[in-house]
């Protein structure tokens, strides 16, 4: 073999390596996106302290490049106005820390001033979350629903549309049992089953975490 051919050979090997890496499919970014829905309807506002704990935990777990937004669930949640705080953490970890502190302050302020809403539009909130996370372009997306999952829509609101949750993980947190659930537990189980069906039929992964002492499972993926 002539020595002069060596560079071409090396180039071919490198090119083959890159082609191989390209042929594996589209590269998923290594960033995480979290969209959290906070139910502010009726008596559930009492649970917002728990929600704060969850938000702080999620903040502590996210790094530079990750995106996080917290939105309230009210009468019409498919709206940017319902986003309480949103952030995409900057590349420098120190800046990201500053952003986390500011985010926390916003949430604290919101929790102090929040007023309960008459209706609960969870599906609208999920749709808004999908939109936000798609725009953020994060690789691994999670939608956290801090609610009792009892959806109550105002008359005229249409939410029977399929959800596109491919590659999304939807985690229901602190799904409290209502008084009616205690009378008929089937109601509670049916409610959970219908949400599971809704999420999984949209291609998403469904999980329920009621034990707030096990927050480390929130961002884990199967």
């Amino acid at each position, binding site marked *: 073999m002539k020595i002069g051919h060596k560079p071409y050979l090396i180039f071919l090997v490198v090119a083959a390596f890159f082609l191989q890496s390209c042929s594996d499919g589209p590269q998923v970014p*290594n960033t995480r996106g979290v969209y959290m829905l906070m139910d502010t309807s009726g008596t559930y506002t009492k649970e917002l302290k728990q929600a704060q704990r969850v938000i702080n*935990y999620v*903040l*502590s777990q996210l790094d530079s*490049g990750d995106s996080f937004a917290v939105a309230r669930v009210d009468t019409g949640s498919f709206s940017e106005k319902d986003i309480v705080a949103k952030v995409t953490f900057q*590349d*420098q*970890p120190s800046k990201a820390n500053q952003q986390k502190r500011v985010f*926390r302050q916003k949430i604290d302020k919101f929790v102090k001033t929040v007023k309960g809403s008459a209706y609960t539009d969870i599906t609208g909130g999920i749709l808004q979350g999908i939109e936000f996370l798609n725009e953020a372009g994060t690789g691994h997306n999670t939608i956290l629903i801090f609610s009792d999952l009892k959806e109550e829509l105002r008359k005229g609101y249409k939410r029977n549309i399929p959800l596109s949750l491919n590659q999304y993980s939807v985690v229901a947190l602190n799904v409290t049992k209502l008084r009616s659930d205690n009378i008929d537990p089937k109601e509670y189980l049916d409610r959970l089953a219908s949400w599971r069906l809704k999420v999984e039929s949209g291609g998403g992964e469904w999980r329920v975490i009621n034990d707030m002492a096990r927050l480390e499972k929130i961002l884990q993926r199967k």
Partner: protein
Amino acid sequence: MTFNDVFMLVPSSTGLSGAIWFVVLTIIFYMARNHAHKGILSFSESIHNAFRLSARSVKLLRDILIIRNRDVLLAQGREATERIIEREFERIDATVRKDLSEYPALHRHLNEEVTVIDESFKDSTDVPPTPPAWVKAVEAVAKIPAAKGDPTVGNILEDIHQSLVKSSTRALEEYRKASSKRHQILQKMMPHWRNVLKALTQVDKSVNSLLARSVTIDRLMHDYEDILKGTEKSQRMLSSSSMTQFFIAGFVLAIAVGGAFINFNLIARPMSEMVGGADMILGFKTSSIAALVIILVEISLGLFLMESLRITRLFPVIGALDDKMRIKMVWITFVFLFALASVEAGLAYMREILMEDDSATSAALRGDGALLAVESSALWITTAAQMGLGFILPFALTFVAIPLESFIHSMRTVLGTATVAFLRSLEWVLRVLGNLVRSFGKIFVHVYDFLIFLPLGIEKLLNKEGGKKSTASASSNIGGVL
């Protein structure tokens, strides 16, 4: 068509079908016996030959490798011994230069001392003053017997005697003075003697040092001659030395890797502030890669520094540079290394600040910010320690060059030895497999014969009968003749 359809020649009876098949197959096998034997034996023999040839090739390769290993080992040993001999000669040269440069001064010093001693000696040999000449006359007069009753003569003699005693006493005193003076001169000679002795002791020490070095060189030259001759002893010695070097150097390199890992952890976090904490290259964080690159650059600079100082000889180009350029290179690499060490110290400081920031954020998110104020009182110790480590580790990693050189050199021998061992095992396995295949061929022949034992038994009986008949007819023919 299933196997059952083929097998069941008599549909109602499996046993009968089996028996028919057995008879048919036995007949076929019996008829094909010779060809089958030849086929099995040829097949096993050809595979045996293939294995044997492979084993032979492996053996040839092993022999070539052994020669190559021997050459490498001897070349390395020769080079190492040359280096040691060279160093010894350099030391002798330095000693000789040092002593010879002092030799004129020493010579002059000894000359001066000897002159002083000579003069002192001359001074000390001065004879004592002789008694006056008239003393003999007086003595002669004094020996004249005194006339009886002549007081004049007696008086004269008495006077002579007294003057003689006086003169003798004076002479004795002068002699004593002269002796005392000589003793003083001799006493003054003592320091000069000591100086001479000291100078000669120094010369003796230098000569002995040279003699000791010459003994070492003699021994090294003997080893060198052995290596040049390629004796078994020298090969054994060098091989053992290589193995030892390999493991020691490997151990030290493992320690250095630990040091590099600590260094990496010191700078990886602050690097994320510089190059971003989210970017990834080939699945690794860019900040981690940047930190790793800095450490590798430091190690490379350390290698160049060691090479420029001629402590290691990994790059012949650097070793072949003229001294002026080499010293320039020493300074350049040292300055770069110093700059990187300073940067690392700064990054280590930055790391501490960032860690504090992280802790503060975590505490704020957990809601226990009060704890942080208590913990932060003695943080300056860890900050100082981190900065110190950040500054020292790059210089410490410089010395990786020494074990690395030993590791690379000894690895050639160790890998060669390991490959030879592997080839030897492979050769053994191929030979065993070849022999097994041949043996299996013979076993198959026997198994084949076992399957057709019935026709073979019949054949044997018939052969015996035929033999008896022919023997009987032969004997009857003989009887007829007789």
